[in-house]
């Protein structure tokens, strides 16, 4: 159990909704999302910033939620995989992963989706090379990456064709 003297209130916004919960300063943002807010879509893999599974967007920028403490995210706007779908409809990126078999066990998927969300947000031109560059921050032990890249390229082509 957390020691009372260390505990503090942390208020932040996740997918547009404001949350306040109590945690020790040493609680990682990833643990805070999962255990305090019960948003378990963000996964924890290596806990030292290598695997990319816990990637979320903080004020629009992709970051490892295991490499920062929840208390450091006070007042920030966080986007997680739970915010991608529109109601029960997968968004176009998620749909592309579905269609291309871009996941098997799915453990790394939420982090990858967040990185690609940022990628499509900040770029206006896309290429296989730059997609592979941003994906280099993620480890997937199932797919061999080819189907993940194919899914991202589908979204890129569709955006370039002006379908979105």
């Amino acid at each position, binding site marked *: 159990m957390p*020691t009372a003297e260390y505990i503090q209130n942390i208020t932040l916004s996740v997918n547009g909704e404001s949350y306040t919960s109590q945690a*020790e300063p040493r609680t990682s943002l990833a643990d805070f999302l999962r255990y305090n807010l019960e948003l378990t879509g963000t996964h924890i893999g290596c806990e*030292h*910033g290598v695997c990319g599974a816990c990637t979320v967007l903080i004020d629009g920028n992709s970051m490892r939620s*295991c490499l920062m403490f929840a208390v*450091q995210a006070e007042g920030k706007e966080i986007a997680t995989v739970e915010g991608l779908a529109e109601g029960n409809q997968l968004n176009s990126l998620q749909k592309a992963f579905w269609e291309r078999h871009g996941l098997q066990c799915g453990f790394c998927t939420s982090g990858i989706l967040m990185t690609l969300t940022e990628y499509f947000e900040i770029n206006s031109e896309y290429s296989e090379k730059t997609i592979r560059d941003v994906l280099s921050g993620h480890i997937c032990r199932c797919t061999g990456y080819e189907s993940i890249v194919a899914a991202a390229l589908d979204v890129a082509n569709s955006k370039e064709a002006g379908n979105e």
Partner: protein
Amino acid sequence: MKSSRFQYHRPSTLCEVMDCLKNLENPRVIAGGQSLVPMLNFRLIEPDHLIDLSGITDLDYIKKSGEEISIGAMTTHRTVEFSEIIRTHLPLMSLAVLSVGHRQIRNRGTIGGSLCHLDPSAEMPLVSMALDAQLVITGVAGVRIVSIEDFCEDMLSPAIEPDEILSEIRFRPWQKGHGWAFTEYARRLGDFAIVAAAALLDFGEDGRISKASLTLGGVGPVPTRITEAEVELVGQRPSEELFARTAKYCAEIEPLDDPFVPGWYRQRLSVKFAQRVLREAWAQSQVGNEH
């Protein structure tokens, strides 16, 4: 793998940071935390107090004043990557920053944090060494300026006291038309470099090399300037033969040696990379002069 307990402080001015450093027992300063948090999670370090510098917005800037470029210590790699000032005046840094970790790491990691962590293969210390950076260090006792050479004391051990923080990094850009090059090898894009190399070359009107900087990372305990090579390059006309000859000085560094990468491999790679960056810096200067 969770950090041990600590109390968290988020000062908003340098003055408050100094108060924290003066009054707290066993404190640790955190910048972007991209190296520090793994060390906390592994419990390699167990501070009682964590002092977060991210509240000090005054330390996040890239400025040009006169001939000098100054970068606030809390400037993220992302800001450096997208900075027009850096692209124009410190093109070597613009190129090398792309090899710092991955997108997600560059978004949060800072140049000051990278310098204070001082990993032997890190890109920002390497570039700072190549460009003869000056570091502004703010401490309880006052402000001092130290050269990157003196700062890089030993592996993961910069010459900075527990009651000091790095606040600014200053660069003198090379003149327009100079050549630059950077290369590194890691087993996966964004991983720690096994060997990294940077070169800067400037040329006189007679086409001879007038100024040279050759730096290796990942080979010695800290980024290393190959001064013998630099001395020999200056005054010469650039040629493959010259680059091959001067690159051989790289083999004189005592290389890091570990079970994954033996020293002889780092040594061979560093000679090859030195030759490559010299060649590319020369080619780059010619591209620059065509404009």
